């Protein structure tokens, strides 16, 4: 187990700043998720921590030790790749035993340790098979078993669930989280999937353009986004961002409900919502429309849970409301959070 500290880390590919001056510190046993769209530098950051990519500038510390000049094998880390990167010419047993053999672990202890790692992921019966004879989910377990077998001080996971189908992914996510809780190894997890990030992370680092936009617990980055990028990236559908005259106003689609559907009427900001289209998704209905009198030209999406039994007719105007503290304000130019600038008339 180890802490990880990254100081002023920078990586340039020619003129492109893939990672542009990042400071981070990861606590012992923490599950940290690097979240961002593709090309935001999250994978490059992970690869630099792994030692697969040399940083242009800055320091990386693992367990308090500067590892800038250490090759990957000397960093006591384990990594699971998106492709799983199993050795195709070796059996599952040999794949799992590989890190032990490569590091010259005492031969007699290898079979026992391989079996223990395999048992952890329920793949004991596949030990004699080749990776190509396994399904995607089984391969992923082998990759995980190979990663844990040497008891690394740091786990690096690069989108390990993205090659699984949707159903399996949810299951695997749960297993992964439980497993990390059990062994308590510091983990850095890269993903572009916000649901994975929200579900797995103790903290989420939202990245874009090689920079860190926000670091915080899933609830913090979801409820209190620091800028319009974070607000627009998290959530499905994402936060409604309405450009006003002096600032950008944001609120979550699921927090903007018919006035009567709110439990208490206290602190509510009622707004007229004109519905253009209704989409019924089963568990919720998505309403597309605009704020009739405040932001007539901005599109607004509302997510109404199935528990709200109301009929909505496209073309009609309804009275909706959102809690005042759920409305976020962002600077029009920089996109950063600013102090509230109420645009509504208090009743």
């Amino acid at each position, binding site marked *: 187990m180890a802490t990880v500290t990254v100081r002023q880390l920078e990586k340039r590919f020619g003129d492109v700043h893939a990672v542009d001056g990042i400071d981070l510190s990861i606590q012992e046993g923490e599950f940290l998720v690097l979240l961002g769209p593709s090309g935001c530098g999250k994978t490059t950051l992970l690869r630099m921590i792994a030692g697969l990519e040399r940083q242009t500038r800055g320091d990386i510390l693992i367990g308090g030790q500067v590892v800038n000049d250490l090759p990957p094998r000397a960093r006591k880390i384990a990594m699971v790749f998106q492709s799983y990167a199993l050795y195709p*010419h070796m059996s599952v047993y040999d794949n799992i035993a590989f890190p032990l053999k490569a590091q010259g672990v005492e031969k007699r202890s290898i079979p026992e340790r391989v079996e223990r790692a395999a048992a952890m992921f329920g793949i004991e019966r596949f030990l004699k098979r080749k990776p190509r004879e396994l399904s995607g989910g089984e391969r992923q377990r082998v990759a995980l078993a190979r990663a844990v077998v040497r008891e690394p001080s740091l786990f690096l996971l690069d989108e390990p669930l993205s090659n699984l189908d949707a159903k399996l992914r949810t299951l695997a996510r749960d297993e992964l989280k439980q497993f990390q809780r059990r062994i308590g190894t510091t983990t850095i997890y890269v993903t572009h999937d916000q649901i994975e990030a929200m579900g797995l992370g103790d903290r989420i680092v939202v990245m874009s353009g090689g920079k860190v936009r926000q670091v915080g617990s899933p609830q913090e980055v979801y409820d209190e986004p620091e800028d319009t990028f974070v607000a627009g990236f998290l959530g499905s559908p994402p936060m409604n961002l309405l450009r006003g005259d002096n600032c950008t106003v944001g609120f979550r689609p699921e927090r903007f409900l018919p006035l009567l559907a709110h439990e208490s009427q206290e602190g509510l900001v009622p707004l007229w919502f004109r519905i253009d289209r209704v989409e019924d998704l089963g568990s919720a209905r998505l309403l597309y429309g605009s704020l009739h009198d405040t932001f007539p030209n901005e599109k607004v999406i509302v997510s109404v849970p199935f528990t709200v039994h109301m009929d909505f007719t496209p073309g009609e105007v309804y009275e909706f409301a959102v809690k005042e503290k759920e409305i976020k304000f962002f600077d029009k130019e920089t996109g950063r959070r600013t102090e509230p600038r109420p645009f509504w008339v208090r009743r």
Partner: protein
Amino acid sequence: MSAKRGTVTSPAWRVVHFGAISAFVLFAAFPFFWMVISAFKQTLDLMNPNNNPFVFNLPPTMVQVKMLFEGTEYTKWLWNTAWVGILVVIITLLLAVPLGYGLARLSGKTGERLGIMIFLTYLVPPTILFIPLSRVISYLGLTDSLWSLVVVYPSFTVPFCAWLLMGFFKVIPPDIEEAAMIDGLSRFGAFVRVVLPVSIAGLLTTIIFSFTLVTQEFVYALTFISSSSKFTVSVGVPTFLVRGDVYFWGSMMAACFIASFPIAVLYNFFVDRFIAGFTVGAVK
């Protein structure tokens, strides 16, 4: 597949199918049949134009084969060919494997362009190169020595095999090398313990291919070697079994069969992988 089964097994299709396959089998096997039958025919049988050439018209004989082994230095030539071939294969592997790997892993267009340039050198024919190369050989003091061939042959086996191996290495995902590096190996260790075992098909292709090139090479072997005891099969056979306008057909066929059969068998064992070797990278 199952839906199309009916058409595949329909009688008309089977006739076409087997017809096509039989034609190819005949085409491929006929030279071997011809070599074997000619090797055991009496000279009179071979020379009479009224005979049916596909059967023994006179009883078979061992005379031609005996003449090959007792009247020429054929065994010596076979040994020379194998000796040169094995050395060239070793040199080719030592140079082409790192070269092909480097080209495969060079990022961007650079690797691709370098690969094409290296391949182009393979296209310069020996008939042009043997003149300057003969000066090099005499400068090195290797005239009339088998070492001259060991030195010269890699000049065409290395570029071709490097290019071939580049294709093999390209399809190996870099992820598995990186995984091996994280798991405790150096880059070189990852290359030896993970990349090479995975590209065994490419290595076999390289070995067979460079060995074949060496056994059939004629121009350099003819120019650089003058003593008959140092000939390779490809030079020795036409030199000693064609005297003026007299062709020792039977012995020649025996010589060709003995030299080509092992290679044909090797090809057959690895034919799938060999084809894969030539088509890797062709489609994504």
